[in-house]
């Protein structure tokens, strides 16, 4: 069978104009006719030779850093903007959801907006009518249906918007980061709905930064970096490659420049970075992953030589301490001389998905006296949903902070009569 989407050599060029106002005006255009152009245009390829095929029924995740070209690709797929060269052959109706609530009007009521939005998204009025009750039910806004949208809370607006979109029935569904809507409960509902869409045999293209969601919804993923495809294979594989993309600030935080440090300064942390099982530099992990934290310590005096304690502490986004990896806990000191690389090894990361920050310590006596170097918030660290228990179940955010390995058993107890 022929693939439902054939994407062939797509390129999209933008001209970045320097030395000029960022918008076009007639005056500039006319003036440009008469003078030698003082502004310089630079060609920029948002997408550079992108090719891949999508088979019917496949769910594909498209991942990449900000500005990698993911959204441009989706815009071309949904005909919003044309490619500069290349072509896409599509063998099905594409519905795109680049934003929830496109075309919602604050002055119209909830009911009116359902019809308007449905129609803009390409639904026939009959379709909307037949699904109207389901849409309202899913959104949970039936009480306010005849209230102008501007009086809705923003969460309710988003829920209504997602609900309309959730009942689209195209052959190919293109989704861009719409999961970031509503409260945790509704997000779960959305994810469930999208899983259902994928399982019903529809083709789904899904762009997201939420690796957990990609892992849950997609079987295959395409990694785009700087407009080019870097990887295209099964989702787990591509996600681990995604973490290896160097994100300059995140991967190897330069610490030598930082001034907000405490300690006597005889030796200093130079940088911190993370590596994965293969020894590759990464900037994020999944719960349950093997993690290495590396730090470089430099002694100011080349003759300096001493055994010191090192510690790294992890804090959550609220700056609450999660745990510390102090070498003192293991009765270990590290030998510092010249340039030293320190490595902490975590066999199985127990942190729940979220964003974490870390502090670094270097000291001589336990208790934190004789501080050589100490800095707070030296790195940021992302943990995504992962299969911590190797059960095929993704452990999601929820209310848990940690995952712990465990087992459950049971036995029958005879009743004494």
């Amino acid at each position: 069978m022929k693939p439902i989407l054939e994407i062939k050599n797509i390129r999209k060029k933008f001209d970045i104009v320097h030395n000029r106002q960022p918008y076009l005006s007639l005056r500039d255009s006319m003036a440009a006719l008469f003078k030698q152009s003082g502004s310089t245009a630079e060609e920029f390829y948002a997408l550079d030779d992108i090719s891949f095929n999508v088979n019917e029924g496949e769910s594909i995740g498209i991942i990449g850093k900000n500005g990698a070209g993911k959204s441009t690709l989706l815009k071309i797929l949904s005909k919003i903007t044309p490619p500069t060269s290349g072509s896409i052959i599509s063998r099905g109706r594409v519905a795109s959801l680049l934003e929830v609530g496109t075309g919602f009007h604050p002055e119209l009521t909830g009911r009116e907006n359902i019809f308007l939005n449905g129609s803009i998204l390409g639904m026939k009025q009959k379709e909307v009518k037949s699904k109207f009750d389901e849409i309202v039910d899913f959104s949970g806004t039936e009480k306010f249906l005849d209230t102008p949208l501007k009086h809705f809370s923003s969460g309710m607006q988003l829920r209504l918007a997602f609900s309309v979109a959730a009942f689209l029935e195209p052959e190919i569904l293109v989704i861009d980061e719409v999961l970031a809507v509503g409260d945790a409960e509704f997000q779960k509902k959305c994810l469930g709905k999208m899983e259902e869409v994928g399982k019903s045999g529809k083709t789904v293209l899904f762009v997201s930064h939420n690796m957990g969601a990609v892992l849950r919804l997609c079987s295959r993923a395409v990694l785009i970096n700087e407009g080019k495809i870097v990887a295209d294979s099964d989702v787990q594989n591509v996600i681990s490659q995604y973490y290896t993309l160097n994100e300059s600030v995140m991967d190897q935080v330069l610490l030598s420049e930082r001034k907000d440090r405490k300690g006597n300064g005889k030796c200093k942390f130079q940088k911190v970075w993370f590596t994965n099982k293969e020894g590759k530099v990464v900037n994020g992990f999944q719960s349950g992953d093997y993690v290495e934290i590396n730090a470089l310590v430099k002694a100011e005096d080349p003759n300096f030589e001493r055994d010191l304690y090192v510690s790294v502490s992890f804090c959550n986004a609220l700056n609450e301490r999660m745990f510390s990896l102090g070498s003192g806990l293991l009765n270990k000191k590290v030998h510092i001389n010249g340039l030293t690389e320190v490595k902490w090894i975590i066999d199985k990361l127990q942190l729940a998905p979220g964003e974490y920050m870390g502090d670094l310590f270097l000291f001589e006596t336990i208790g934190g006296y004789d501080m050589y170097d100490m800095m707070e918030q030296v790195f940021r660290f992302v943990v995504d949903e992962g299969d911590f228990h190797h059960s095929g179940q993704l452990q999601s955010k929820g209310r848990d902070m940690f995952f712990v390995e465990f087992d459950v058993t049971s036995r029958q107890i005879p009743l004494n009569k």
Partner: protein
Amino acid sequence: MEYEIKPQEKISLGLKELWQYRELFFFFTWRDIKVKYKQTVFGFAWAVFQPLLMMAIFTVFFGGSSQEGLPYEVFSLSGLILWNVFSTGLSNAGNSMVTNANIIKKIYFPRLIIPISAVLVSLFDFVMAFIIFIPFLIYYHIHVSLLFPVMLIVGLLITAVSTFGVGSLLAALNIKYRDFRYVIPFMVQAMLFLTPVIKTPPDRWKYILAVNPMYSAIELFRSGFNDKPLEYNLLAISITSAILFFVIGLYYFRRTESYFADLA
């Protein structure tokens, strides 16, 4: 259903696609009408008040004598209600791409639907205003010719075609050069005086003024109930220019529309 997405090569009217999306005409028009009169006490009555008030002001300052064999009230009101189709249609269509930029950037549909809907909204206002115009014809005992419905429809057709033509041209230009946001209101105001709305312009300029399609559209409309003979060569000039504006507007719009999302 198989189709290809690739760089734009040739320009077509895309009528088939417009037909596929026909419901969207209704929804955009319906939305704009709804929103226009939402949270107003008088609602649709505003469509009537505006020309009536203008007529009252014009009558105070310019009234007294009859124009083209019509009492001044009837003369100016008949001109105003048709002129309003052009002026509101033109400014709404001209700004439509910019005001709907958030939709254009996020979803695909034939872009032409938006300026066409803007014209449809102004036609709706005309219908409301026309209902008020009829009592004026009766009150002033105006003799209405049997051909009036024909004159009305042809007059409206010229108006709609030229409003859409100029409107879509301005919409496409406006999204690229925001200067047109300032040009449009000025243009509409200036044209009011070059069109026989407030008073008939001097005869010696008529051949040039007829290039403005609204010139003959209004004269034609009025000829259904006044005794001024219709000048066919002026009508021919106006119709030609209406069609020309329509073709140029449509062509330029279709040629540039694929890049609207990048510019908006």
